[in-house]
């Protein structure tokens, strides 16, 4: 299999397969064979995926939050959570890449009205990321995209751990009220990859009760360093006596942990380092 993909004919075949597959899904915009020359990315993880496959130069614009790699910073910005369609149009793109989890409603119809093709990229789970890399690459005309994706998959798997006594880890998203990362989410998958048990047993991003936190404190509490301030964390811990004694509370790099992109490996590495120290 590996040798098939490294040969040029193999790659073309895979790309053709991808194109056919993509074309069969009506809602999706099929990648053109040559790939987009002027694309706009509406999510920072999509931007990172684009640069990771070497197609950064094909991007003519990004959303406000795309700040990585450094080369993405100077690219024209089209808006944050609410991208400005006029600004998008002004860049004369031939493709817009949006994330299924963060695009605002109405985007599709506005772009269709402007005759700009829109491609949806889904990265809800950790397992989606290598596949997303391939799809982004295909859209941007990178024939090697599957290779990069395979390498990413390999690097992710290299971070997989089995631990004899899996630590219970909680990822806090907001403190007042307390919201956490549940199972079957990207962050949840990350915790499981590194051999931890998610202290939260329900799915999605639920609100968590203080009582449960005090009754069953996790071994490690992680929180994103940009959205949650140390002061907020302190207030939460003050309201839940006893948790500080039991848990290590660690701030993590938000843009690495919460973006389902190529840096997920970095996140896993950091998490493993945290969990290796007991």
């Amino acid at each position, binding site marked *: 299999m590996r040798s098939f993909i490294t040969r040029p004919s193999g790659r073309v075949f895979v790309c053709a397969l991808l194109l056919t597959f993509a074309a069969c899904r009506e809602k999706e915009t099929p990648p053109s064979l040559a790939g987009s020359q002027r694309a706009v990315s509406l999510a920072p993880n999509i931007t990172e995926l684009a640069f990771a496959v070497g197609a950064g130069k094909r991007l003519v614009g990004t959303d406000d939050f795309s700040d990585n790699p450094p080369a993405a910073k100077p690219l024209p910005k089209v808006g944050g959570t609410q991208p400005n369609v006029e600004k998008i149009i002004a860049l004369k793109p031939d493709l817009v890449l949006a994330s299924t989890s963060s695009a605002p409603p109405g985007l599709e119809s506005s772009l269709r009205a402007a005759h700009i093709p829109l491609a949806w990229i889904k990265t809800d789970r950790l397992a989606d990321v290598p596949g997303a890399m391939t799809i982004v690459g295909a859209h941007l005309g990178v024939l090697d995209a599957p290779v990069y994706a395979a390498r990413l998959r390999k690097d992710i798997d290299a971070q997989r751990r089995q631990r004899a006594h899996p630590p219970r880890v909680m990822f806090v998203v907001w403190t007042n009220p307390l919201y956490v990362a549940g199972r079957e989410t990207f962050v949840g998958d990350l915790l499981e990859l590194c051999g931890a048990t998610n202290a939260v047993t*329900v799915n999605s991003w639920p609100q968590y*009760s203080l009582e449960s936190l005090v009754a069953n404190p996790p071994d490690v509490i992680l929180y994103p360093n940009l959205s949650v301030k140390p002061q907020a964390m302190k207030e939460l811990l003050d309201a839940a006596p*006893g948790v500080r004694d039991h848990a290590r509370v660690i701030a993590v790099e938000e843009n690495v942990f919460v973006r389902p992109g190529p840096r997920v490996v970095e996140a896993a590495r950091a998490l493993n380092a945290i969990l290796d120290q007991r």
Partner: protein
Amino acid sequence: MKRAVAIMVLLLAISIALAVSFGATSLSWRAIFAGDETARTILFRIRLPRVLLGALVGATLAVAGVTFQTLLRNPLADPFILGVSGGAAAGAATATAFGLAAYRGVVPAIAFIGACGATAAVFTLARRRDYVDPTRLLLSGLVLNAFFSAVILIAFSLSKQSDLTAALRWMMGTLFGAAWSDVALLGVLLAVVVIALAFVANDLRMLAFGEDDARSRGVDVERVKWIGFGASSLVTGAAVAVSGIIGFVGLLVPHLIRLVWRRDFRYLLPLSALGGAALVVLADLLARIAVSTTELPIGAFTALLGVPFFLSLLRRSR
């Protein structure tokens, strides 16, 4: 009257007992008596203050509701519908968004200012020559609520300390993280306000017949209005500052009490306070245990109960 108070006290006691007994975690009473640290922490530092704060918030909103209804001679008045809760939340949220929560007492004080501002605004907007037009009252409340929601959203959008997610906490109301200091603050304020209202309770009752009529009977109408509006705004501000906007309690409770008992303000004041306390305690209990480890927003429950009730009242009064 004594019988009514006894019944309501019993109802409240049962509600509190239930709420303290159930929660996201199941507590064993034996463990608590045996001195289990964790169980005690959960009971005394998390569950009990939360239940008591809920009772105080409910009592406060019901008292404010009854007072507004009497002062404005409108059965649909309630701190949320009038926009007073919204004003308090806008004040508290803005103060929090710009980092003032670190200083003790600032947030409740600004919430009070917001509540007073809203009361003044709604009263001015709805007033015709010598009476308060009920339709204009409701419309003003509606418009003010929209305005205050916008203020909250913008404050958090601009805030460097926080972001938009925090707005939800204010707009939907929650008793999460209730602390004994919150219980003390609201408890003291509520006691002060209830005493003040008890002083003018007879006069407030007379106001229900009209301002001129009350004046002819020796009521100092201006003074009573200042005390009534001032007390209600103060206590609404404090309740919203600790728990966000919890709507419809001030509407539901006085009406339910009126259905069963008297319509006289002197009865309604204590009975509504007890009833409001019981309602919020029970609503919060549901919010805490409906789904395991997760909490539902309490404001949503009171709205689910309150809106159909409000609509039926509206239909009957037209």
